[in-house]
């Protein structure tokens, strides 16, 4: 049995601090939250990409983290799993022998011009079939979104509603990039097309930030009742059905089984809305809607903060921000804050069971974690 003892995160935004300083801040908050000293941490798992565009030119980040933490005795492992780094780090922590394992996710994406970040993120796609054919990350997701829209008669308005919902949620999240920034449906619908049919406001934010969580074998008020990791083929075009990601369906199925629950038991969700279309597909792959009916959840307001199944109360990757490897851990941060009644203006009433869905690539690496508020 594993529990979450404490969580911490920096504001997701543009930071002048170095990657290690961002980690330091998130770790400090997580330790304070857990009310425990660093010396009680047995292992650290750090999720961080291998970017050459963070302006830092730093490999062997374990050593850097060790330097800033000033404790040479803690084993540190680095996980590189693109946007799923945080989720994979968490999954590893749960599967480790450590009594207290500190999971950290961090990324700096703002120091380089967009074209280099686009290129950097594209390296998580297949080199010969996809990268050379111009399939940047938005382009990959645009092709999938188009397949989804053609197959299930979804439209750009559905995507816009997902974007609007997540921006409304981020408005109340002080850690979100779009905190107190008003975004309207008009702004979303009139934003420039990045890769048709996806517009700028359909895409998540490449941003800086770090998040930390302490996974413990000691009982706390937050239990991890489901944890699964699935990997699938890298290019989405290889999937039989591009509109459904096997990684998500399998990871969800396993996590629900471990937790002994069904999707109906889940109170709120943080999904990997790297693109608004991914959120719609995730509704279905996670079992909250039948295939093709995900759009109904957003149309009927079910996934809004006051709906029956609130999704991405943090603002999601779309409006909280998406510092790649930090995202998966930041989802846990939001779930814990909600469960402990610390979510301020975006606080939900029902927070007994929360689910986090983290994806690397276009469905090639997926984690699903289910958390339960004991006594909640």
């Amino acid at each position, binding site marked *: 049995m594993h529990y979450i003892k404490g969580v911490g995160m920096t504001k997701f935004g543009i930071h002048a601090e170095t990657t290690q300083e961002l980690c330091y801040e998130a770790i400090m908050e997580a330790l304070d939250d857990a009310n425990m000293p660093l010396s009680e941490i047995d292992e650290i798992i750090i999720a961080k990409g291998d970017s050459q565009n963070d302006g830092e030119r730093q490999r062997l980040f374990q050593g850097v983290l060790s330097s800033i933490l000033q404790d040479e005795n803690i084993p540190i492992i680095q996980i590189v799993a693109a946007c799923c780094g945080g989720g994979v780090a968490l999954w590893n922590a749960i599967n480790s022998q450590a009594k207290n394992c500190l999971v950290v996710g961090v990324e700096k994406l703002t120091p380089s011009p*967009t*074209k*280099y970040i*686009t*290129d950097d993120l*594209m390296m998580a796609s*297949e080199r*010969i*079939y*996809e*990268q*050379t*054919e*111009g*399939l*940047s990350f*938005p*382009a990959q997701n*645009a*092709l999938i979104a*188009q*397949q989804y829209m*053609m197959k299930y008669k979804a439209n750009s308005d559905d995507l816009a509603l997902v974007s609007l919902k997540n921006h409304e949620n981020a408005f109340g999240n002080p850690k979100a990039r779009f905190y107190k920034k008003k975004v309207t449906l008009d702004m979303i619908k009139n934003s*420039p*097309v*990045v*890769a*048709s*049919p*996806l517009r700028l406001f359909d895409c998540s934010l490449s941003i800086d930030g770090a998040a930390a969580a302490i996974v413990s074998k000691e009982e706390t008020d937050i239990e991890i009742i489901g944890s699964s990791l699935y990997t699938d083929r890298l*290019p989405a*075009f*290889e999937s039989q059905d591009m509109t459904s990601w096997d990684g998500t369906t399998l990871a969800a199925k396993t996590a629900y089984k471990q937790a002994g629950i069904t999707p109906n038991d889940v109170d709120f969700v943080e999904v990997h809305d790297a693109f608004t279309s991914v959120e719609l597909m995730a509704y279905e792959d996670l079992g909250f809607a039948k295939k093709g009916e995900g759009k109904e959840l957003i149309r009927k307001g079910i996934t809004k903060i006051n709906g029956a199944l609130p999704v991405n109360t943090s603002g999601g990757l779309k409006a909280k921000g998406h510092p790649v490897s930090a995202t998966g851990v930041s989802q846990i941060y939001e779930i814990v804050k909600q469960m402990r009644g610390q979510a301020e203006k975006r606080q939900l009433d029902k927070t007994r069971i929360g689910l986090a869905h983290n994806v690397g690539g276009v469905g090639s690496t997926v984690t699903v974690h289910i958390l339960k508020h004991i006594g909640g």
Partner: protein
Amino acid sequence: MIIRWVSEDGKRKWIYPVKKDIYTKGKIIKQISTKAKVIGITKVNIPSPMHPITPYNVILLEDGYGNRMPKKTMKEYKINDVYEIKPAKTDSAVIIAKIKYDIYEYLKHSLKLLHNYNISSKDKILIKPSIIEPAYSYQAVATNSELLDALITYLRENNVRDIIVAEQAMLGNDTIESAAKSGILDVCKKHEIPFVDLSKSEYVEKTSDNFSFRIAKEVLERKLINMPVMKTNSQIVVSGAMENMLRVVDENTQKKMFEQDIEETLPKLIKILPNFLSIGDATIGMQANGPTLLGEPAFLNMLFLSKDPVALDSVFIEAGIFAKPNYIKEAALMGLGDSDTNNIEIIGDELEAIKYPLKAAEKNATAHTKIKLIDGKANPYIYNTALKMSAKLVGLLGQEINLVIGSLITKDMLQEKTRLVAYGKEAIEKLKPLGIKPVAEIPEEMDDIEKIMLLKSILQNPDKESITVIDKLKSKIASFGTKIKNKF
């Protein structure tokens, strides 16, 4: 073309060329299709370094087997359109193929797309790869041995028995050593094909536009397939289909061609050669300070094929976003081929869709940051040995030297340049009428170690204004000492 590697029981498909089914240990069968339906389209508006020109489209293709593949295009497609590459209709057509893990299949498919190009079992083929210095295939200095293997396999499948592979290394390098290191000799051995060192050929004298060439006899007697590595070149911007033909002539002709400006004499050579097919090897390709090992692999994964070497080079130059060099313009003016990419028929991948700025070669770069070349289009021997000398001095601190080479030196090129060292007869003679006295003159016939010792002495003595008798004596002694040491 969409390829899948399928298990013999048909249960599994790979996008990678696996040799066996890891589950059943059974055989793998290739599933190939050249016709597909457009099932998805996105218009991309954000640029990236690999894809700087926007907007572009990416279409998602699906073949009859249900296999899919994305394809970048500048053309507008609609859902359900048929995507099929039709064969060329003109002789100057350039076939562009982005290889998806299978060099052989893409080469075979590309050859079939050429206009009026047939292989007969009676053909006597000469394959002319590019092997300029000892280097491994992955360094993109020499033609990729895997591509050569693919071509010979294809020719053998077409019952061509009489094939030779012929080339000579850049002047100053050993051909056999270069061919061995590149893996090309191994391919020849595998197929039991002779490798001919063109530097030892019998030559035939031919004159073109008042320039006399001594051309290797084999080249004139056989059906020629030219296999250049597509590279950057610090002397002439790009080495491709035209430049690769330089080494079919003897040493003296090569030197003379540079003396009279390679950009003017190279088209004359192409004019006098029989027509040939070029298979531009960009399986790796080179960028930055080519064409030697100073360049960098470009990892292009492409092939460029054409019966028109001018068209092929022009397309590659535009794809890499380089300025068109004079020899291409000259060749086009002479009617040797088409250099206007608006007129050239492009088959396969689109030129606009593959444009990507390769790193250009610096004109003055050597391996030593303090030794710069001022290159008056020196002949390959001088150019090559100048680079080798500077490479030997890497790691030594010193003050900048400008190594002047070649005969096409102008006063402008020397403006504000100090510490000039004239290397080779042409440069030494050229500086005299210009009234410029270099720090030193290094004749090409000087012993190699002596040359290096002299250059070292100039590099390390910033106040040196000229070479003294003592310097020369010291370098002779060092050279003698090294020789004695090597002997024992």
